[in-house]
Each structure stands twice: as structure tokens, then as C-alpha cells.
């Protein structure tokens, strides 16, 4: 395809000149997705409001609308939660129902916040927000210390393998900026965290209301020598979170132009889940097991020397094989499991019907969709105490449990702890088409 055809309007009515390096510099920054959880009481909205306001991501007309609404409701202060609580029902009830996505950028990074409600009845929203997060931000009130909710959030983030966690001990101004209080909560949380799988934990004492340690370092806590929250968010090292070892390329779509344009092209389109692919590499296509070589890799219509996560590319193979959506390209000596029996933790997300053993669902895993039966429910996990209830007969909304699935076709999967893309799946109810569960593959 010609340049003019791949770039609509490149020769269009206005061909504006390219921008200079200064104004464009933000285009080269990387992306950090982080999830926050909590309720209004712990100061989460104030903290997010401050991050957004100080990075100029809140606009005057938004602030004016929030101020007007706050005033008409008789709030004593401008309620920044109104910025994120976008639905009428949320504003009327003063609660956050759903995940809200907020965006802000600094010259170093662009941030996507998945802001989720903290109460136990919104566990599924937290799981949703955490599924794509690089970092989880957990807030505790310095006066109260760890509460049930903080432990649950930490557990869910570790279950979803969010690679970085920040514990913000908020309202330090209300405990006289006490190092002892900070140390006590820090140690209690660290002790709890050792039971979980949290690769990277940072603890920051803040006062969201006064801005201490949010954007700049606090003068009130000279005993704290760590970074401010924003400094940490800007600098936390995420490049090595990606799995660049195991080549996993789920085939999403076959690009095979049918038109008589003189093109003889067959490319396997998809997004690299993990590993690095290069032309000339010997690869295996699953589930068939045939091996071939990569003839070329196209990225947006141009040939490239390599492909790595999260690039969306099109892979050409040296031999004509039968490859279709749902297949996976990997390396012959590093393959995912090919299995019809899956052990998984699932979070039940449907309010209409609980999960019962022997029920059948549709599984969507990578680009592959198969049917599955729940062969057994091993236990239900109490997300507050981590107690396992092995007598549980079903999973209700927001409950988490361990199940065994038997699928009609093999899944090409890895343990979730090794690969978040090839280790996660959703269950779809075949009658209602609703997404009823999130699953994490254990083996």
C-alpha cells in the first residue's frame, strides 16, 4: 500500500509542519498505569485530586462545575470526589460505583489512574482495575492503621500480580508527623506482606490535605528520607516488569488481502504478549506443533527487525502452514502448557447467578474462545482473613475461589505469575452473554 493510502490525509488539505522537539518531548515519555482503591474517608479522592490539580490535569470548567455542585449540596469543602464520580447515581448517592479512569502527565511520564471503590461489595471493580495496573496505590489512615480493607486490597493486588505497590500512610498531620506511628504501620504491613507475593513495596508517609510528600518532600517529616509520591511514580522502574524471555504471540487475525491488487500477502496479526521475535527465528505454532521460521515482521505496514511487548505487529512465516485465530506462535524449546485441565483462582463477578460446580461457560483466553465445565470448587477464600472454606458449594458475587476447569479444546497457557496475558481468562455466561468471572491460571 502506498504511503498516501496508509496515512489518510498526509497529502490532505492542510499539511501542517511538524512540531519541534520541545513541544513534542512528552510524546516520548512512557506510560504507567496505576490502580487506587479506597473510600472517601481515607483521603483517596483528596490525594488523587491533588495529583491531578498539581499536574494541571483538572480544568477550570471542571473545577467550576464541581464547586457549584458542592455548594448546591451544602458540602463544607469542594468535594473532589465529584470529579471522578461521573454517573448521576454516584453523585446522588455520594458513592463510587465503578472504575473511573483519569489521566495526567508530567514531562517524565504519562499516567492512567484506574480509580476503584474500596468496599467489599466492589471487589470485582478492584480486580478489574488491578488487572492492567503496573502499580497499586493503597491508602491507610495514620490514626487507624491497617484495617480489614487495606489487607484485602493488598491481597487482591498480589493475586492480580501488580508488580509494584505503594502504601501511603495518610493524614500524618493528624498524628503530629510521628515517626513512631509510621514505623508501627510500616512494620505491621511488611509482616502481613510477607505472606503475600509482593515483589516491590514502597511505604510513604503523606498528608494529602496539606500536600506533604505528595508532589514535593515534606518539611514536617525530616526523619523520612524517601521520595515523594509523585517522584516515586515518575521513577519507579517498570521496564523489567515485562517478560522478554518467553516468546508468546497469540494470533489475533489473519491479514490476507483478497483484492486483486497483485498482493500475495499472508500475515498473522497480533500483540506480542511476551518475549522478543526476530526475522529468522525458528518458531513453533501451537496447537499444531509445526515448526517454521519467521520470514518477516511488519509493524504498521513497515518491516521491523524485532517485535516485543506490547507491540501490535503482523508476522509472516517462511512456510505455508494452517494458522488461524486462537493459535499461538512460540519457540520450540520454550512452549506454554497445552492443556484441557486448568487449575485457577476465579473472582465471581455476576450478581444474577452464582457459580455452581458442573456449570458450563465460555472461556475467553488470549485470542482463543472455548467452552468449559467447572469440574470442581476446591475452596472459597475469605479475602479478609485468607481463610479457605473447603465446604463452599458455590461462589457468589465478589467471592474468590479455586476451581478446576475442563475445556473442550486445549488452552495454550502459562501460570499467571509468569505471564499476565497467557495466564488470565474470563468466563462468559452462554445464556446472558455477561462476563461473569475473571480467572487466574495456577497450573
Amino acid at each position: 500500500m502506498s504511503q498516501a493510502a496508509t496515512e489518510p490525509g498526509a497529502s490532505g488539505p492542510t499539511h501542517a509542519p511538524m512540531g519541534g522537539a520541545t513541544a513534542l518531548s512528552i510524546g516520548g515519555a512512557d506510560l504507567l498505569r496505576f490502580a487506587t482503591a479506597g473510600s472517601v474517608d481515607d483521603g483517596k479522592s483528596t490525594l488523587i485530586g491533588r495529583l491531578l490539580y498539581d499536574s494541571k490535569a483538572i480544568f477550570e470548567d471542571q473545577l467550576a462545575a464541581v464547586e457549584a455542585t458542592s455548594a448546591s449540596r451544602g458540602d463544607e469543602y469542594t468535594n473532589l470526589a465529584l470529579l471522578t464520580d461521573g454517573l448521576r447515581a454516584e453523585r446522588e448517592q455520594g458513592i463510587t460505583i465503578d472504575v473511573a479512569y483519569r489521566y495526567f502527565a508530567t514531562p517524565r511520564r504519562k499516567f492512567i489512574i484506574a480509580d476503584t471503590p474500596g468496599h467489599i461489595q466492589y471487589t470485582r471493580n478492584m480486580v478489574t482495575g488491578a488487572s492492567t495496573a503496573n502499580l497499586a496505590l493503597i491508602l491507610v489512615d495514620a490514626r487507624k492503621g491497617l484495617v480489614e480493607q487495606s489487607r484485602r486490597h493488598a491481597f487482591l493486588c498480589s493475586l492480580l500480580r501488580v508488580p509494584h505497590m505503594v502504601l501511603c500512610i495518610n493524614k500524618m498531620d493528624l498524628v503530629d508527623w510521628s515517626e513512631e506511628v509510621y514505623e508501627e504501620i510500616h512494620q505491621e504491613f511488611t509482616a502481613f506482606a510477607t505472606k503475600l507475593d509482593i515483589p516491590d513495596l514502597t511505604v510513604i508517609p503523606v498528608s494529602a490535605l496539606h500536600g506533604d510528600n505528595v508532589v514535593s518532600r515534606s518539611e514536617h517529616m525530616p526523619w523520612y528520607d524517601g521520595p515523594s509520591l509523585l517522584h516515586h511514580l515518575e521513577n519507579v522502574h517498570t521496564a523489567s516488569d515485562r517478560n522478554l524471555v518467553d516468546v508468546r504471540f497469540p494470533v489475533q487475525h489473519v491479514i490476507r488481502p483478497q483484492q486483486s491488487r497483485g498482493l500475495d500477502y499472508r500475515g498473522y496479526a497480533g500483540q506480542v504478549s511476551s518475549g522478543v521475535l526476530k526475522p529468522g527465528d525458528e518458531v513453533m505454532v501451537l496447537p499444531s506443533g509445526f515448526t517454521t521460521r519467521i520470514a518477516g515482521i511488519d509493524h504498521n505496514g513497515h518491516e521491523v527487525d524485532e517485535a516485543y511487548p506490547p507491540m501490535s505487529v503482523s508476522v509472516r512465516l517462511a512456510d505455508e502452514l494452517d494458522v488461524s485465530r486462537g493459535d499461538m506462535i512460540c519457540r520450540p524449546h520454550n512452549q506454554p502448557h497445552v492443556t484441557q485441565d486448568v487449575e485457577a483462582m476465579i473472582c465471581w463477578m455476576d450478581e444474577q447467578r452464582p457459580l455452581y460446580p458442573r456449570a458450563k461457560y465460555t472461556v475467553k483466553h488470549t485470542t482463543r474462545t472455548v467452552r468449559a465445565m467447572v469440574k470442581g470448587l476446591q475452596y472459597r477464600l475469605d479475602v479478609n482473613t485468607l481463610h479457605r472454606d473447603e465446604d463452599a458449594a458455590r461462589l457468589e458475587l465478589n467471592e474468590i475461589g479455586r476451581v478446576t476447569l475442563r475445556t473442550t479444546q486445549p488452552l495454550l497457557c502459562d501460570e499467571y505469575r509468569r505471564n499476565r496475558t497467557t495466564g488470565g481468562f474470563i468466563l462468559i455466561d452462554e445464556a446472558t452473554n455477561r462476563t461473569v468471572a475473571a480467572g487466574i491460571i495456577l497450573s
Partner: protein
Amino acid sequence: MSSTADYRVSHLDALEAESVFVFREVAAEFERPCLLFSGGKDSIVMLHLAAKAFAPGPIPFPVMHVDTGHNFDEVLDYRDRCVAELSLQLIVASVQEAIDRGLVVEPPTGMRNPIQTPVLLDAVEKHRFDSLFGGARRDEEKARAKERVFSFRDEFGQWDPKNQRPELWSLYNSRVHPGESIRVFPLSNWTELDIWHYIAQESVGLPSIYFAHEREVVERDTMLYAVNDLLPARPGEQPFVEKVRYRTVGDATCTAAVRSDADTIDQVIAEVAATRITERGATRGDDKVSEAAMEDRKKEGYF
């Protein structure tokens, strides 16, 4: 193996990869997708991404313009040029024609945005589309901040914000019953500034009204509206010539211009980066009706 630093991805590249994934997912899982194309900058970027997703093949779905009949000439010219360059199939769902055949009634205000929705839904039904790409972004508006990338619509095209499907990882649920559909928003995670940076990075051409030019305008409700046959000056309003540009492009009767000297992408980026007013707040008369105006319109089937 090389160090991980070699495999850095800029945030624009990450957003692009995510959008391309979404386009391909829809092409693979739906039978009759369609892309809503207005000639505005977001739909232009959407089309640019769709072309990349299927290169070197053609874009495997038609585009549809819901045409209120209140257009900027520059934008219509641009639309037709794009369609020709990319050999697209263009469907025009005409609001004027729907008024003529009695499907909708012209509102007394003359603002045709509210009656776009039945025209859109009528065209979706006629062409039996099961998925529609829209260029909406979550940073635009607070109801949109809550919407899924794959947004389920019932057989009346309605959005139910309290009953949305959970969306995890990049596993999008595309299952619908006949008559139901999915609105797909590939630009969900882009901001206005991202769009402009991307337009600069990719040298995407735009209709000229996005750049500063002189235009005869009137000031109405603190906003600047172009004066023309569709939107004459009201009694007591004094038209004047001002250097302006458009931040958004919608129905010409309810889209306002902003004062600007920015006539290059670079200058537009500098202006967008410094602005303290959202683009819809600065330019859309239709969003000022109530705090939940967008949520209400979306529930009725608006994009």
C-alpha cells in the same frame, strides 16, 4: 540478550498498539462492523489507526457519517478526500432526509445534535451493523470516563451505565444477541494532547479549520460562533472578524471556535498544553444543558 532499556516503548506507541489490537479484535469477532467518521480530528486519527491495523490490506469495514446537514465545507471536503484515498465505502446517514420522511422532527432551536441519535440507530438497523467504532475518549467527559472500550448496547441502542460488563486485561467480551450491538472506543485511553502529539508524530493531515484563521463570528453565551447561512446573527448581536480555530468539530450550529493564533501543529500543541478549559467545555453548546447531559444522551443511544 540486549538490555531491557532497548525495549522501551513510548506512551504514544503503547496507546497505538492498544488501539490497533482493538481494531483487529473487532474485525476478527464481529460480522458487520462500521466506523463512525465525522471528519473531526479524533475520527481522523481513528481511521489512521485502522489503516495501520490492516496494512497492507484495506480497512475491512465501511465508514458512516451521521450528517446533520450543518457542516463545515472544509470538513466535508476532507471527508471525501479520505474516502477516495483509502478506497472506503462511505455510508451517509442524513438527518435532513430523516426529517423529510418524518422519522425525526426538527427541534425549534434548530440544533440537530439531539435528533442524530434516532438517525444513527435507524442506519445501524438498516445495515444490520453489530459493532460501531466511535472516537470518544475517556478524558472528554465524566460519563465517558466510566465507559468500557467494548460498550454493550441493547436492541434499542441504549447504554446502561450501572450494568456494564467487567473489562479485564485485554479480554474483550464481544458476545451479543441478534439486534444488540457493541460500541467500540479504540481511543478510550487517549487524551486531547495525546491526539495532537500523535498527529504531529505521524504527520496526519487535518481539515484547515483546526488551525487559526480569520472568521466572522458572534459572541453568544461566552462562546464564539461562526456567522453563516445556517447560523445568522441574532437581533442585537454584532458580528466581528476574529482570528480563531476549532478545538472540536461537530454540528456547525452548536460547535464554537476559540480565539487562537496557532496555525501550526506545534503551536496548537503548545496551546492545548497550556489551556485550562476542557475542549467540550470550551466549544460545545450541547453539553451545557445539565450536569448529566452526556450520560442522558448516551443512555438514549448517542455515541
